[in-house]
């Protein structure tokens, strides 16, 4: 087990968005399902340490990659600059291979970022400010972080939103690779039933509770 919510209750305003939720995430792909407003995003944000728990516990691991339901790219910077910033700020992770590219130094880091940009089909737009890209391109740029930051735990909130079929296939391939490496990935999604085929564990929540 990499991380877990135990008896997690989150109150936003005057509403309990999560109620005594237990959720374990171990190596492989875990899927969190539920209708709109069920509390999936809040559960992921709690695991990422972005919302305080009113009750319960959560251990936030050191090397965690959280990709929210919006692209999280800073406007004013290009795709390449955003990816470089996150890679440099994160530094080394537990999943980084022990060779120079993993150290995030100089040309090796740039090659890694360039490779991710190419894989996610952003080569032609890599040096344009992200606000000039379409929503789908910005989402691809965000997902390119899967290839530039190697983390033991990845939290993906509705990763298929705004993506075309080719990008959806790339996400599936990334999830399968993560599973094969033994990394832990938690995906919150209300659709894409085919996700269940690669999921080791599926949770369902509704109205903030396990369903």
């Amino acid at each position, binding site marked *: 087990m990499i991380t877990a919510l135990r008896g997690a209750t989150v109150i936003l305003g005057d509403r309990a968005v999560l109620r005594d939720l237990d959720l374990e995430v171990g190596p492989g792909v875990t899927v969190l399902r539920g209708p709109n407003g069920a509390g999936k995003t809040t559960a992921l*944000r709690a695991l*990422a*340490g*972005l919302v*305080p728990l009113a009750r319960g516990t959560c251990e936030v691991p*050191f*090397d*965690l*990659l*959280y*990709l*929210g339901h*919006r*692209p*999280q*790219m*800073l*406007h*004013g*910077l290009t795709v390449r*600059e955003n990816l470089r*910033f*996150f890679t*440099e*700020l*994160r530094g080394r992770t537990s999943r980084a291979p022990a060779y120079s590219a993993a150290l995030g130094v100089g040309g090796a880091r740039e090659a890694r970022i360039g490779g991710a940009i190419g894989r996610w089909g952003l080569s032609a737009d890599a040096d344009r*400010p*992200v*606000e000039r890209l379409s929503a789908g391109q*910005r989402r691809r740029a965000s997902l390119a972080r899967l290839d530039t930051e190697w983390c033991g735990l990845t939290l993906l909130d509705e990763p298929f939103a705004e993506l075309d079929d080719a990008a959806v296939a790339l996400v599936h391939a990334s999830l399968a690779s993560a599973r094969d490496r033994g990394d832990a990935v938690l995906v919150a999604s209300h659709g894409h039933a085919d996700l269940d085929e690669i999921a080791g564990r599926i949770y369902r929540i509704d109205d903030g509770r396990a369903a």
Partner: protein
Amino acid sequence: MRGAWLVAARELRADARHPDGFATAVTFVAALVLIESIVVGPQVARETTVAPALYWIALLFAAIVVTTRSFDRELADDAIDAVLALPGGRDALYAGKLIALAATIAAVGLVGGVLQIALLDLTLALPGHALVAVALGVIALPAVVIIDVALTLRLRGRAALVPVLAVPALLPQLVAATNALGLALSGDATGSLAWSGLLLAIALVYAVLGLTIAGTAIE
């Protein structure tokens, strides 16, 4: 500190590409100086007690403008969440924004100062001392305003709440900065340096306090 410098560099790069916050702040400072000199008359506006007070009040509101703009950019695609979810992200975000916004406000202060000198035909008796006062005075502004903007980040009344929270906290800084600059204008080197020393102390206290509570404020 490495994270802080990375955040600061990111902030300044985005600012350089879209300098709308800087341009708005400079326009605001220039408009305020011009309006005030018309309202009270150039003789009063030129006095060494009035001109520095006007300058620092204008810079305070300029600091609110550029800090709010900076966080608006963070919220546009939830970029702030990605930084906060990184190890040490909260501290890096606060310290990085403090460095970058202090630099931006200093640039606004320099342009605004030159405009004020030109518009009011001011004579600066001790330009070096005035520069020291401005350099030290601008550090405390983002140290406080960043916390206030973070506290009100997702509130609808943010535009009204930020000045209400910032002005009382920054009163000691405004008094010290106005005196340091006023005495530099009138040629009192010792007095100006004494007030600048107080400005340095205020800047350090606010920056340390800000670093201490930034994580909680952002949460």
